[in-house]
């Protein structure tokens, strides 16, 4: 079961799991960016909260949306490491050394119990691979997140031009 700010838990039609207590996983603010024309890849973002320590290990979408989904991170690649050491963490450094950013799949994301973990532009995201059709503003589609302990969580994702 999932809890979203505007959606009641019992809207969800997940796999018949009966929850006596609320799920340890809560997802908020799930959105995906509308696709530029000819874009074959999409990205979904959201805030994950878990009452228990857990690990996000997979993501999936229905085949009517795309071929498959993966969890990705964006990291600074090699390149100008010497410059990067000058002033870590500042946007100015990123520009001055023009470090490359690379996106890559991650095996899992550890979620600490009681803390929020944000998937957001420029950071972690659910990459939606080989879109069947461009994602359009106003569309909603499901992303199924798989957690090591909590199992599958279905997240309705709203397609928007930008973050809510």
């Amino acid at each position: 079961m999932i809890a979203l700010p505007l959606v009641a838990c019992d809207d969800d039609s997940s796999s018949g799991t009966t929850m006596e207590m609320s799920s340890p996983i809560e997802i908020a603010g799930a959105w995906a960016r509308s696709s530029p024309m000819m874009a074959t890849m999409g990205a979904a973002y959201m805030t994950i909260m878990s009452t228990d320590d857990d690990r996000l290990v997979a993501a999936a979408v229905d085949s009517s949306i795309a071929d498959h989904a993966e969890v990705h991170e964006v990291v600074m690649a090699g390149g100008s490491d010497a410059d990067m050491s000058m002033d870590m963490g500042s946007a100015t450094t990123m520009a001055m050394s023009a470090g490359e950013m690379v996106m890559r799949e991650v095996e899992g994301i550890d979620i600490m119990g009681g803390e929020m973990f944000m998937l957001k532009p420029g950071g972690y995201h659910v990459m939606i691979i080989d879109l069947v059709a461009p994602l359009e503003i106003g569309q909603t589609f499901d992303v199924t997140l798989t957690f090591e302990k909590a199992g599958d969580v279905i997240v309705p994702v709203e397609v928007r031009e930008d973050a809510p």
Partner: protein
Amino acid sequence: MSPECRGRPSRLLVPIVVSLLGLVGAVGCGGDQVARPLTGIVRDDPLRSDGIIVTDVTDTGAYPADDDSFELVARPGSLLVVYFGYTQCPDICPTTLTEIRTALRRLGDDATRVDLAMITVDPERDTGEILNAYVGSFTEQFHALRPESDDELRTAEAAFLASSSVTRLPDGTVEVGHSVNSYVVDENGTVLVEWPFGHGVDNTAHDLEVMLDTSAS
């Protein structure tokens, strides 16, 4: 200290504040009203892109290419936003280009004086057709640039101190890395300002307004 100076503006308050300041033509980070009118990165010794030519494959939008080359300078009285990216980029490129698009909308009629040039760092997969449709999603006034050789791409990147790499991994996936800044070039080929990734719509719109005001005077 105004949060917008760090490129992480509050979404609620700053749009009002920055647009007012932008109209006035100056913004300060805290009490400094005049010394840093642009929120992006300005170099004492600006980069230059005049003389940098990239193969132009634009066939739609406002500027279908008459010939197949484009020099990275703005039209007279206008600005050219230059961005290096690729269309299969799911996160960084759409985020940045969406910010630019949203910023352009805020300019109203002045947006006609801002053009966007996107240079693909992945010319093998980004065909002309794909690139035109992709960049055209963000503005009518665009140049779809697709380097025909590695040299051509590296020369353009070098002018902006940008870089990129395309790596085909053993499992068949393609990993593309690229520097994620945007650059604004004037009609002389001077890079007026550089915006790092995540610069934000408010800062972007503000800088465009300031630069357009400056070049109009």
